[in-house]
């Protein structure tokens, strides 16, 4: 509102000063009148507004009065303000400086710092100082770089000028060519030369004078003597004689000067002085380096001879390439004046050539005579030819039984047994007991005896008799069948006993013999005889067994009777029992029949046992054939090689009985789990821990105990004890003594 009113003021005040023409581009007279009209209208309007305007000013006056501030007349400043506004040309209200100063004075403020900015800046420049924010310190003004640059420039220019001046002054002294020419005169030059000549002459004169003086006093002779002495003391080629030079003679070129120096040696080394040339040493080093760089191949594949420069084969030592490193470098050296190395070498070469010639082998051109090669050795060659030596194997002199061997023994036996009636055929074919076991009727017993131990044999015979009884019974039928045959060849039906077989069979009996302490062979013999007697006496009785493991004899005369009697009794319902004594086969048979051993058939796994149940024409090939047939009806697959799945037709019946068994170190058969553990431990090389091992051992021991335990009795054998007790008391019960029993009886009584 205020602003608008003020703008009106402006117009009002400005009207007299401004011409209407200035306001509008090019107004005519009519226009001017029209404008006037408008202005009048404006005036009217303005007057109304002026009235309105008075009010706020009055109000403001009141305000100022309230605030105890001097009343400011708005009217007056407005005039001045207009000028300022016009000058600034802005829409906002603005008082002039003077106006503001007046206003400020009224409010109580210091006047405006009009133009102060310029003054202050200039003042600052003059001072060259600046106050900091707190006004305490003055700061040094920053350097003006422009000023500095100008200063430097001027200084440089001055320095240049100065130098120029100096140079000029210096050059001014030097004479130019023309000037100098003008100075040097011929006369001058001549004078100078004369002067120098004169000086020389004077010097000569003076020298002569001095010499004359010396001669007068005899000084000349003394000097000459000194010179002689010095010459004598001088080190000459005579002194060099015998010194060693550490180079090859050939390296010194003839008629050439070489400077030799003493070689460096340790202070404490007690060696002779050695002369060397530094340059030659360097040359040698260089040569050596070149050699090293050549990279000689050490390996000589065909052991070729190496030759030195004179064509003489080099002697080769083992690992010659390391000789230098072990022994140190070989150096050619010579002594001055003493040994003429060059001559010596020549002599050596000549010598070597001579040797070479001496060594030379003469090879004939004639070739060896050709001969026809023959397929056979001639006599000479045969003589050379060595047959491979046969290893002569020593056959053990095992007493092979022959009739001759047996003869003397038989005699002994005949004497001992007093069975003279029985003739023994010397021609009888010798049959070992293993071949034909117990076929013959045992009418008499023939011993095959080793000479060594007939006594033992007798003892064996003793036990044999006992067992024989069983044999007799068992073999009755067989014997009858073969009677005719045996009668043909073996009239008496002797039993032939093999000593070793007998020994093995009766091993169980012998310990008793040894243990009894009746080692005396004579006694034994006597016993044997006695028994024989006894047996004969008690002929009718069935051969009584005196001792189970002892000997018993059979009277062959009673045999017929016995057989007759025994035959009907002993022919068993079951098959006859095979004779265990005859051999392993028989023993196995017996075991089989008794069921100790299973038959192998039963032992087979189901695969082979039920083989007959399997499909007859089934093969693995059939499987693949079906598939292929579906794909290709041509059936080409049949002809094709079907690889490893083909059946072995020739091995059709072969049904292998595969059974994998693992056995541990102790011989126990392991089950799969144990086997795995065992193999694993072996493979890893790391066994189970101590505790585990103990546990396993304990378990196995327990298992063993379990197996040993009888199934019919308690571990403490109470059943046995009970039975024994019952037998003792001869009653079917056992009375358990004790107070408990009485109570029981009492109870039973009360019950009754």
């Amino acid at each position, binding site marked *: *509102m*205020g*602003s*608008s009113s003020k703008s009106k003021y402006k117009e009002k005040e400005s009207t007299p000063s401004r011409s209407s023409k200035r306001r509008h581009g090019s107004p005519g007279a009519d226009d001017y009148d029209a404008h006037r009209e408008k202005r009048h209208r404006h005036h009217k309007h303005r007057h109304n507004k002026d009235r309105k305007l008075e009010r*706020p*000013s009055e*109000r*403001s006056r009141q*305000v100022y009065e309230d*605030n105890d501030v001097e009343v*400011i007349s*708005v009217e007056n400043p407005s005039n001045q303000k207009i000028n300022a506004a016009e000058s*600034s040309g*802005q*829409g*906002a*209200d*603005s*008082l002039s*400086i003077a106006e*503001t100063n007046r*206003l*400020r004075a*009224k*409010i109580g*403020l*210091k006047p*405006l*710092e*009009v133009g*102060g*900015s310029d003054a202050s800046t200039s003042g600052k420049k003059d001072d060259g100082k600046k106050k900091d924010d707190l006004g305490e310190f003055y700061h040094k003004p920053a350097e003006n770089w422009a000023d500095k640059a100008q200063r430097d420039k001027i200084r440089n220019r001055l320095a240049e000028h100065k130098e120029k001046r100096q140079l000029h002054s210096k050059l001014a002294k030097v004479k130019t060519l023309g000037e100098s020419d003008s100075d040097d005169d011929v006369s001058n030059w001549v004078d100078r030369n004369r002067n120098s000549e004169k000086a020389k002459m004077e010097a000569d004169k003076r020298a002569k004078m001095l010499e004359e003086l010396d001669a007068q006093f005899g000084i000349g002779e003394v000097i000459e003597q000194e010179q002689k002495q010095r010459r004598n003391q001088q080190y000459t080629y005579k002194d060099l004689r015998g010194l060693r030079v550490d180079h090859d003679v050939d390296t010194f070129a003839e008629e050439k000067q070489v400077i030799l120096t003493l070689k460096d040696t340790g202070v404490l080394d007690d060696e002779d002085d050695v002369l060397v040339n530094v340059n030659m040493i360097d040359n040698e080093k260089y040569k050596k380096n070149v050699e090293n760089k050549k990279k000689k191949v050490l390996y000589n594949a065909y052991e070729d001879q190496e030759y030195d420069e004179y064509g003489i084969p080099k002697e080769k030592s083992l690992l010659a390439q390391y000789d230098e490193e072990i022994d140190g470098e070989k150096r050619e050296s010579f002594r001055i004046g003493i040994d003429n190395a060059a001559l010596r070498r020549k002599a050596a070469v000549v010598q070597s050539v001579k040797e070479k010639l001496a060594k030379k082998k003469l090879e004939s051109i004639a070739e060896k005579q050709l001969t026809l090669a023959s397929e056979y050795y001639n006599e000479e060659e045969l003589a050379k030819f060595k047959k491979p030596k046969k290893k002569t194997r020593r056959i053990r002199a095992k007493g092979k039984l022959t009739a001759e061997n047996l003869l003397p023994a038989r005699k002994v036996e005949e004497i001992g047994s007093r069975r003279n009636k029985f003739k023994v055929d010397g021609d009888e074919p010798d049959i070992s007991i293993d071949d034909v076991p117990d076929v013959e009727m045992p009418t008499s017993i023939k011993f095959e005896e080793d000479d060594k131990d007939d006594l033992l044999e007798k003892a064996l015979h003793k036990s044999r008799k006992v067992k024989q009884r069983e044999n007799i019974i068992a073999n009755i039928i067989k014997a009858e069948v073969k009677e005719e045959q045996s009668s043909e060849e073996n009239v008496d039906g002797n039993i032939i006993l093999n000593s070793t077989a007998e020994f093995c069979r009766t091993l169980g009996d012998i310990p008793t013999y040894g243990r009894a302490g009746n080692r005396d062979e004579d006694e034994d013999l006597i016993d044997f005889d006695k028994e024989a007697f006894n047996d004969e006496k008690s002929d009718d009785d069935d051969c009584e067994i005196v001792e189970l493991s002892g000997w018993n004899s059979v009277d062959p005369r009673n045999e017929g009777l016995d057989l007759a009697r025994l035959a009907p009794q002993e022919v068993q319902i079951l098959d006859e029992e095979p004779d265990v004594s005859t051999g392993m086969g028989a023993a196995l048979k017996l075991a089989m029949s008794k069921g100790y051993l299973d038959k192998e058939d039963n032992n087979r796994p189901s695969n082979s046992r039920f083989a007959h149940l399997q499909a007859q024409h089934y093969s693995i090939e059939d499987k693949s054939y079906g598939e292929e047939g579906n794909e290709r009806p041509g059936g080409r697959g049949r002809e094709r090689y079907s690889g490893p799945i083909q059946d072995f037709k020739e091995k059709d019946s072969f049904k292998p009985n595969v059974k994998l068994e693992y056995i541990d170190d102790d011989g126990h058969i392991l089950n799969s789990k144990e086997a795995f553990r065992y193999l694993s431990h072996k493979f890893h090389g790391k066994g189970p821990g101590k505790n585990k091992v103990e546990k396993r051992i304990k378990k196995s021991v327990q298992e063993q105990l379990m197996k040993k335990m009888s199934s019919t009795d308690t571990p403490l054998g109470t059943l046995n004890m009970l039975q024994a007790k019952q037998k003792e008391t001869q009653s079917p019960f056992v009375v358990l003594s004790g107070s408990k029993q009485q109570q029981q009886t009492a109870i039973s009584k009360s019950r009754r």
Partner: protein
Amino acid sequence: MIEITCNDRLGKKVRVKCNPDDTVGDLKKLIAAQTGTKWDKIVLKKWYTTFKDHIQLQDYEIHDGMNIELYYQ
């Protein structure tokens, strides 16, 4: 001397000449003299900072030709 423009954006726009070391209170009195409002009803702001009476203009970094918002309370 600096000249500051104060605008209330309601029709009043004043240009005030003052010294940089005048306080805001002094400026308010000058504005009041020019506009005719009571000086203690005037609030001067720049964005959200309200200028306090006892602080010099130079401390508020009010320079020549700056615009200050004019409010009334």
